[in-house]
């Protein structure tokens, strides 16, 4: 079985789907001949031609708007937004058009558009190449949000997204684009949307994260184990719709939990997860659910490693919940 990084896994998924489904169209800035600034669409232009791998003018609202039009026409567009920091010129298209088309037309115009975009910090990208705006989209009814943490899931989740009929924002954690490597079958397979994964079992504290932060909580869980604390690690994978059963079961069992994401804390995705867990697990909780998040500041350049959650901060939150 070949070893792939996330970029290669995404590329592999796109290649498989484009070969199977002639209606699938990749479009975006620099996605064609150049293969994308992160190389995720590398080789697709040569394999599928300029009609199906389209270099567009530099305008995010046009990329998403064109994708919506193509979907209305019956195509399966897969637009790329080069960095999720640059998604905002298309925010109106995503929030007011893409996410609402099926609803407002009574199901007459579903819009199966899968937007791929790199997300998150840790690459010395400053304000505009580092942000994690996922909660803004989770808060928008009508669009699914998926963030994989490893190559296997990246391929399987992306293929799932491309084979269902709802719009999806597929956010790829760019810090671990190349760093996360693993065995990825070359054959066609899918990973079900809306299902979290327990990646490490433990019986004292449940750690919950997604994307690049999954690796931070795994590191924290390993360090906690060294000092005799047993952590369960859960990778949410799909943020909308999220897997309430897996996290409820784990937190009910352990009575303690820490939620981690690199987006700012206030009104961040973790707030929803914590609140949902309080609704279901209150009687079983031994301590308030901890949150380790980015600070409520714009994403910094020089102090980005201080800004982003790391294993030490997560370990601190684990101790706090145990000492409550």
């Amino acid at each position: 079985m070949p070893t792939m990084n996330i970029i290669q896994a995404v590329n592999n998924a796109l290649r498989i789907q484009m070969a199977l489904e002639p209606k699938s169209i990749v479009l975006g800035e620099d996605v064609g001949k150049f293969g994308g600034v992160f190389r995720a669409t590398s080789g697709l232009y040569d394999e599928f031609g300029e009609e199906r791998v389209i270099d567009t003018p530099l305008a995010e609202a046009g990329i998403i708007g064109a994708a919506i039009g193509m979907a209305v026409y019956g195509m399966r567009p897969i637009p790329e937004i080069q960095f999720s920091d640059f998604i905002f010129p298309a925010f109106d298209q995503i929030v007011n058009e893409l996410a609402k088309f099926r609803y407002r037309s009574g199901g007459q115009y579903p819009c199966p558009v899968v937007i791929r975009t790199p997300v998150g910090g840790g690459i010395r990208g400053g304000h505009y190449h580092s942000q994690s705006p996922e909660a803004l989209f989770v808060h928008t009814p009508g669009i699914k949000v998926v963030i994989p943490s490893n190559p296997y899931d990246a391929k399987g989740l992306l293929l799932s997204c491309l084979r269902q009929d709802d719009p999806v924002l597929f956010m790829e954690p760019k810090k671990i684009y190349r760093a996360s490597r693993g065995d990825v079958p070359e054959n066609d397979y899918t990973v079900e949307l809306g299902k979290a994964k327990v990646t490490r079992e433990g019986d004292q504290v449940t750690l919950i994260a997604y994307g690049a932060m999954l690796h931070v909580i795994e590191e924290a869980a390993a360090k906690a184990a060294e000092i005799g604390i047993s952590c369960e690690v859960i990778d949410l994978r799909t943020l909308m719709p999220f897997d309430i059963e897996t996290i409820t079961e784990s937190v009910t069992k352990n009575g303690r939990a820490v939620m981690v994401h690199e987006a700012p804390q206030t009104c961040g995705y973790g707030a929803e997860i914590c609140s949902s867990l309080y609704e279901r697990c209150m009687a079983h909780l031994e301590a308030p659910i901890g949150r380790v998040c980015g600070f409520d500041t714009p994403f910094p350049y020089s102090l980005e490693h201080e800004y982003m959650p790391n294993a030490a901060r997560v370990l601190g939150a684990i101790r706090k919940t145990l000492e409550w």
Partner: protein
Amino acid sequence: MPDGQSEKTENEAMPMPPQAPTGPAFAYFDQDEEAKALGLFEILSEDSSYDPANTARFDKALSLDLYRGMLLTRLMDKQFMALQRQGVLGFYAETLGQEAAGIGSAAALSSQDWLVPALREHGAGLYRGMDFGNFVAQLFGNANDVTRGRQMPLHPSDPATRYVNMSSCIATQLPHAMGIAMGIQIAGDGSEVCMGYMGDGATSEAEFHVAMNFAGVRKAPVVMVCQNNQWAISTPGTGQTASETIAVKGLGYGIESLRADGNDILAVYEVSKYAVEKARRGDGPTFIELLTYRVSAHTSSDDPSRYRDESVTKVWRTKRDPLVRMRVFLEKNGWLSEADFEAMVTQIEAMVRKSVEKQRDVTMPPLSSLIQDVFQTPWWRLEEQLATLEAIVD
């Protein structure tokens, strides 16, 4: 309503079969790009005089068809606006004064073509065969509404006639029109064209420029039509752009741009036909500015007397009315008698009234529809939320 200048019969020419236009007015299309974008194409002048050499394409059937489309728009608007004033409808927006622009442009499309509307193209949609009952049900947002009462009135949806469902946002539909045209380029059989509509206000929005730029670069089979009614709610054209015309903006994107008298349905039809046929040939996009005037208020929520000189409106309502202009043309050709006209009015009014009667007392969509169509299948939380609501609502 059009009053009869029917006694004037300066032209008794026999109806001629449809054919490619050759009259002197068509020299407009031979001008350089800038002259077309700054000029104004016209066939029927304000007093309905015309050169028969320019109207060769308009036989009795087509001419009556165009007129009936305009008349339907005007008569139904009158009834629906009255229902809004009675509190029966929550909202309405008339097309008064702009009927020629919508109908004349959409008439240039074939049944397989796509129409991406803005606010005042519902008449055009009905002209192209959108189901009238569905349209009225959408106005009421009732259980018969195929869009399940999801939007304010005047947001119909009709895939059967390729009438795309719109939002209330301005200019956001233009990249969609362009995207449909890209889809046609990639996967179509070469027979389809997409027409995307906007008002003058939309040309100030980013997405107008984004869509025009994409369309120019991709040479997409799209016709972008601007109904320049000179008012974006209370903002006049001069407050919207310093450009000499709206059409001329298209030249910056490398798009051929035409400008026509939007109250002259024959001129509207001809510029639109030119653009649609060009797109169908694979010769790329066209931008069309149709100069007209919003005689009515913006919507039922607006009061134009607060911000504009209504004596100007009166000139447009009386001297430049698109229905009067076309009716005189029909009468000059002997194609519409007073009795024919009355029969047409009676038939349309009865159809509208009957449809309203059928829809006005229909119940609202069921509670369960609240969570449908967010996704193909409602996710668990939506099911929970519906259950909570159903527990407290009888």
